[in-house]
């Protein structure tokens, strides 16, 4: 059982390394960074306490929001998905990404106190 899981995983990693374009890999690195940041914030909250709660919330929401936006960007940029996004060019996706991030940052900074 564990054997098959391991083999699936290694296969997946190989495929990933070989077939993913560099741009997407960069975005994936960014996603990993966001994820780790969120995890560490959550860990702090669990271990030490929820004071100040609003700051924790804003930081965590920032992580979650950024993750989602980056995922959206990755989907839209992926050349394999071009059929689904005929009207959206990669530049347009990036511009949307920036705009959405501006709004997210505004809200987060308002809430962080």
């Amino acid at each position, binding site marked *: 059982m564990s054997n098959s899981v391991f083999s699936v995983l290694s296969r997946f990693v190989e495929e990933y390394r070989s077939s993913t374009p*560099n741009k997407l*890999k*960069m975005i994936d*690195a*960014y996603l*990993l*960074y*966001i994820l*780790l*940041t969120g995890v*560490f*914030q959550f*860990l*702090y909250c669990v271990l*030490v*306490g929820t*004071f100040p709660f609003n700051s924790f919330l804003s*930081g965590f929401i920032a992580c979650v929001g950024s993750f989602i936006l980056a995922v959206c960007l990755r989907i839209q940029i992926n050349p394999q998905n071009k059929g689904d996004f005929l009207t959206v*060019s*990669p*530049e*347009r996706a*990036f*511009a949307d990404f*920036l*705009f959405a991030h*501006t709004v997210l*940052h*505004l809200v987060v*900074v*308002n809430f*962080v106190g």
Partner: protein
Amino acid sequence: MAHLCLFSLLVLSLVIKTQTLTPSHHLTTSDVARLQAVLSQPLTDLKSAYYSVVGLSKLGIFVADADETCRFIKSNLDPSSVESLFYAAEASQALSGCEISVSNDTRDLLLATVSEDSTASQIHQSVSALSSLGLPLASQEVVSALKARISKEDNVLAIVLALQTASRLSQQAELGDILEEIEDLAARLDDLGGLYLQFEEGLEATALFVSAAYALSDHVDMEPPLKEDQVIQLVNSIFSKKSWDSLSEAFSVASAAAALSNNRFHVPVIVSAQGPAAVSHSHPFLQLQVTDVLCQPLTSATVLVESASAVTSKSAILSQAPFTLRDGVFELNFMDNQPASGYYQFSVVIAGDSRFVANHVELKVKVSTRVAINNMDLSVVDKDQSIGPKTTRVEYPTKAKASFMADSHQNFAMTFQLVDETTGVELTPHQTFVRLHNQKTGQEVVFVAEPDSKNLYKFELDTAERKTEFDSISGTYALYLMVGDATLENPILWNVADVVLKFLDEEAPSTIQAKTLYTPKPEIQHLFREPEKKPPTVVSNTFTALVLSPFLLLLILWFKLGANISNFTLSPSTILFHIGHAAMLGLMYVYWTHLNMFQTLKYLAIIGSLTFLAGNRMLAQKAVKRLERK
């Protein structure tokens, strides 16, 4: 005579109002004296001379130096002014031997003023001047002029002056219409709480109305259409003010007082008890003063007690008993009827003149007596009744020689009787208290002694039961008996005996705590909201570093993946875009530290639009380049 009218409003307030009102305000001697003083002020001009001289004459007082005043009047007279002639004529008539010579022109001026074109006040002044100077006038003309003025000037003062003028005319003139104005004016009076009747124009108008109405009614010999209650309400209004703002106000009050004390129809009667309405064996006479509104005694009246009954038992004591007049005061020896002590309701009638108004008066009279204590027996009784009680008799006002001992097995008892000193009737006063006072600690406990059905007072002290009142403090207590009542002339405070009380279980604190109710309490320090407990700085710093560490990881990964900025074109839009973007991030930081949402949005709009334009340009160029590459 001057001290007969005493300030007795308080007594009159005891008067219960039946169907007829009795005056609640009236002038006392001091008030009349004050009125005189106001009217006797030194003369400044002709108007004040008129008010002073005529006002004082209405009070029955004549000016001291008549000649001086007459000269003053003559020198201040202005023969071309109707008003001046009026003041001079009226004042000179009030003085004896003061004649004002009148020329034909003056007379013509006065007669010419009697017309529809002059105001009611001018007509009043000219008619009064003509009448005082003894000059003839045409009454019918005056009447028609007055009627015309009344319909034109509908105010209260004008109609009052018309009434006053009509009283100076001949009796043959048709004064019927003007007489009816009294009733109309009376309807315009404001009723205040059923006690006062006055015009909204004020006290002066009301007082002048009263004097004018009675002057005219006397002149035509017809009773004014004022009911008794209305007359009393007018009395209350006019005489409720005891200090007057102006000479004219004082004059109007004096005229009203003179009119009400001496007219043919209504004379309000003021009845007041001299001193408190109380009788006792030492003061057996109930004394009443019966006067008119000017505080002059009505010696022609006969005062009769219609009925007198006890307030509590409602049994009648007196019926149709007359008062005797002695030195201007009506008195009755009430103690002859041997009344028991208490309060009695008297209904008094003042007869003798059909003009008397408010001549039924209700009075509450108190009969006081002296109390004596009989058969004061003190005893200490064992609870289990094994040992018979030893009673000691104590006579008032001596104190028992031996002190009494009582501990938790014994009861201390006291019995006594309270009787009227003179008649021997048993009394039940309102206050019969037994007070035990500990001399050492200053503590005192008060109990009430209750009478039984035979009016014998009993007091029992059960030491075990009552130990909480005493705080279980044993010691010598001085026993006092306190007897008091409104109808007792000799309230009693009698140290009867000393009682030594022994309590079990000395639970009492060794020192008596003074009641700390009124000492300052400990100060309350305000506790500010404590900030929440923060984790130690080490922990916070560690986690900050931990949270920031993935950024390093990101940079490493990007470097490994081969991220570069080789495609960075130095076109102005690119530079502008990057600068704008950096500015937006910087604005976020500044928003966090300094700004509020509105300011941020403002700056964001500016920077954002620039960045958007530049970015749009840049991305469009990139897209073109990408498509070219394809």
